[in-house]
């Protein structure tokens, strides 16, 4: 008959390998190996099997669109969490990438295998040069400038009637066979995901984190902050331009609405839901958000209201994101103990 009002506290105990030490541990048994690699294998395997499992060709196309948003979310999360540059300009990367790929394909007649890599590098270069003047900015100021870039580019193209004006560029080659088209983007997502995770722990990744943590002391260590920020922006815009170039060859068309606001906002929503800072989180976030908005298509205009409310629910109740919550659950188990 204990008094009901005694205090209870939730205690978290590390589980599996995490028990031994903060970061360095030796794997001694298959079980521990599985404990570590199971989530990663599940992720890679899941992504690769996904297109085969999908009921119809339409859902495979949805998977490609999801991968495009996943790449954008990845580039946003890398910039925001590891370099401290919150960029609301995902559409700017997609737009540049698409237009370059479109021009390469229509005027120079290069096939997708060539246009995508060139568009990625060239686009990344152009985006970095154009964003150079606002690199010294911080926080909200950088966010709002990058929000304005795609809108300005769209209005300039519309006013000068260049690059096909408001009609856009037509007649672009698509991929030769369907499976190559599907698996190219999935492999790119996996490669870039694990690539950025590894990059972030390399020495250069530490410099990026240092720039975010305290850029004054990076300057005192004899390194130009703007130089390293521009490298980070180059990498992030490269990922964005890759997604843009792929989108062009997916729909054989490039136009003003590759600079649409949705390309800037949805990746951020995916990052917020997925869990900022984990790089895998935003990719998962994209894999949740985009299919939901497709499923809700049956509700017509109400679909956006549902989609916005789901996003809101995640922001309020689960503001840290699924991945962070999942990681905590996976590595620790909680039990209530009496105080």
């Amino acid at each position: 008959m204990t008094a009901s009002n005694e205090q209870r506290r939730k205690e978290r105990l590390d589980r599996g390998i995490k028990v031994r030490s903060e970061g360095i541990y030796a794997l001694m048994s298959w079980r521990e190996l599985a404990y570590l690699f199971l989530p990663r294998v599940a992720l890679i395997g899941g992504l690769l099997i996904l297109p085969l499992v999908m009921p119809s060709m339409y859902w495979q196309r949805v998977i490609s669109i999801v991968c495009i948003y996943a790449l954008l979310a990845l580039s946003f999360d890398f910039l925001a969490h590891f370099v401290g540059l919150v960029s609301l300009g995902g559409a700017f990367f997609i737009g540049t990438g698409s237009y370059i790929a479109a021009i390469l394909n229509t005027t120079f007649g290069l096939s997708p295998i060539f246009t995508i890599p060139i568009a990625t590098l060239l686009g990344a270069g152009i985006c970095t040069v154009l964003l150079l003047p606002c690199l010294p900015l911080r926080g909200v100021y950088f966010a709002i400038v990058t929000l304005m870039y795609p809108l300005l580019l769209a209005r300039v193209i519309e006013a000068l009637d260049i690059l096909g004006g408001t009609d856009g560029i037509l007649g672009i080659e698509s991929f030769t066979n369907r499976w190559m088209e599907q698996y190219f983007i999935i492999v790119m997502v996996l490669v870039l995901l694990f690539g950025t995770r590894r990059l972030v722990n390399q020495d250069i990744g530490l410099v990026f984190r240092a720039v975010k943590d305290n850029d004054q002391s990076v300057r005192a260590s004899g390194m130009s902050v703007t130089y390293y920020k521009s490298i980070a922006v180059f990498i992030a815009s490269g990922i964005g331009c890759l997604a843009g170039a792929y989108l062009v060859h997916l729909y054989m068309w490039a136009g003003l609405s590759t600079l649409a606001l949705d390309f800037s906002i949805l990746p951020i929503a995916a990052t917020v839901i997925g869990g900022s800072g984990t790089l895998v989180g935003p990719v998962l976030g994209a894999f949740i958000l985009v299919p939901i908005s497709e499923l809700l298509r049956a509700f017509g205009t109400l679909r956006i209201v549902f989609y916005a409310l789901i996003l809101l629910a995640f922001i309020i109740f689960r503001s840290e994101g699924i991945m962070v919550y999942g990681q905590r659950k996976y590595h620790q188990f909680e039990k209530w103990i009496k105080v």
Partner: protein
Amino acid sequence: MSTSTTPLLQINEVTKAFGGIHALNEVSFDLHENEILGIIGPNGSGKTTLVNCITGFVELTGGEVLYRGKKISGKPPHKIADMGITRTFQIMRPYYSLPAYKNLVIPLFSPRAKRTGGWRGGGKLGDRNTVSIDILEELGFERESFVPYKKASNLPTGYLKRLELARCLALNPKVIICDEIFSGLSMSEIASMVPLVERLQMEGITLIMIEHRLRELFQVATRIMVLNFGEKLIEGTAEEVMADEKVKEAYFGSEEVEEVMAHA
């Protein structure tokens, strides 16, 4: 203490005004190779502004800074640091999210470190992690213990101050400007820092020490300069400075002076 012909660092009439308020008013002094210059002065006398002016964090309103005869006052801070003039911050600025030894990987990533091979690197930079642990060990981080692997955010102040110093050492510096490196430390920690500073001097590094703890400063410094309201009052050895009337009236006033004189 060889004083070569041209001084290592020449500060000529450096002035800095923040919208009318003169933080620094035509301060001039020379810094010679391998000496330790102590700079003292009451709070708000422009000491930190002087450091910011020398290291390019703040643009000068007037005057110039010469390093080995070459003008460096217009250059951005990372270029000045690249020449070997490094500084620590009065309010410590470690990378809180990174463990201690990873904190040093960043300066070891700088172009200067690559050129000079980092502290004791002798031209070739080995694996950055091992080099950083060597530097930390030299500054009193026990190698076997878990201290170098702890996150910077849960290190005590003493270790953070050493981390600041380690960050400068990683660049194999010519000059280190220490901004109140002894403040906020316990007596035992200060006691262990003083031999450290002396060893740096023996390694051939020139130091500018800005301090409020005069007793330790006088043990270490070869020359003292006093700043007051952005102007240079006097420059000389510890004894000359102490004896000077203006200094006493402007800065010390308190009985601490007699007590320090007794020991010096």
